[in-house]
């Protein structure tokens, strides 16, 4: 019985106080042969290939911040593209976040999203050179 309760509790995956938000700027390109993705992007490379159609990824920059209700955080994974993240609410399995994506001083996108743990948010950003900049946000 105890084990059942333990398993049910584990399956619910409640958010913890020590949750962090990870952000990354990724350059996606098509290369022959395809480039092996860096370790930090191994889990994302198949989705990027499926969604955006690029077979190679480069990690331009990444940044991680702790999350707490009502807090306002700046995530600056690169000089040109960065995020302002406000935690609007902490729910049982989600964080309700207001996310501003800036390109230098220009606000490109403002969004409210419910982010679950290990369920990334992909943002198709501007193009850079021959590739596509993709921004990633994930609760960890």
């Amino acid at each position, binding site marked *: 019985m105890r084990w059942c309760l333990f398993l049910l509790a584990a399956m619910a*995956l409640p958010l913890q106080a020590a949750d962090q938000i990870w952000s990354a*700027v990724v*350059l996606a390109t098509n290369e022959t042969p395809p480039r092996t993705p860096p370790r930090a992007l191994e889990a994302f490379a198949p*989705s990027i290939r*499926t*969604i955006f159609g690029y077979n190679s990824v480069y990690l*331009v*920059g990444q940044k991680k911040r702790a999350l707490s209700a009502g807090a306002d955080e700046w995530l600056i994974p*690169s*000089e*040109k*593209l960065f995020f302002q993240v406000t935690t609007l609410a902490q729910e*049982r*399995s*989600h964080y*309700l976040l207001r996310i501003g994506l800036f*390109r230098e001083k*220009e*606000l*490109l*996108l*403002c*969004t*409210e*999203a*419910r*982010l*679950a*743990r*290990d*369920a*990334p*948010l*992909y*943002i*198709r*950003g*501007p*193009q*850079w*050179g*021959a590739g596509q*900049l993709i921004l990633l946000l994930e609760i960890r």
Partner: protein
Amino acid sequence: MKNFESQYNRWLDGHLRGAGREAFEASLDDETRRAADGWHEVRAALKESAAAIPVPHPDFLNAQVLRAIETPAPARRQGLPLGRLVWAGALCLATAGLLTLSFLPRETRGDTATTVVSAWTPAPDVSAGAFPVPGGRGTVIWLEGAGYIPGEEKVR
């Protein structure tokens, strides 16, 4: 012909008598007469072998037969036995549960997926659309018209 048959049957059964019998027998040919003799032999054999078997206590037997006839048949049990009723109830409950589960609208992405509540872009030439990652729990915000950064510019 029909008259001959009826007379022949009466003759076989021994009902023809007197002058009628003699006249009918005179009209029969040899073959018919032999067939009639064969029939008489068969009937005699049947009478001998199909005689009633003597019953040792006929009154007792009759009483038993009458008693069996007069005894009313046992009434059929009404309804289902309790055990079957319990099993039938359990089966109905299980079926109802399965049907309910199969018809319930399913939240395919559920609580474990990232979803976009709203997205807007201040620049009029930039637009945003959102869709779930196929087969995953993530979500994509697709910015259209986000511009181009020349390759020689530093992004990092």
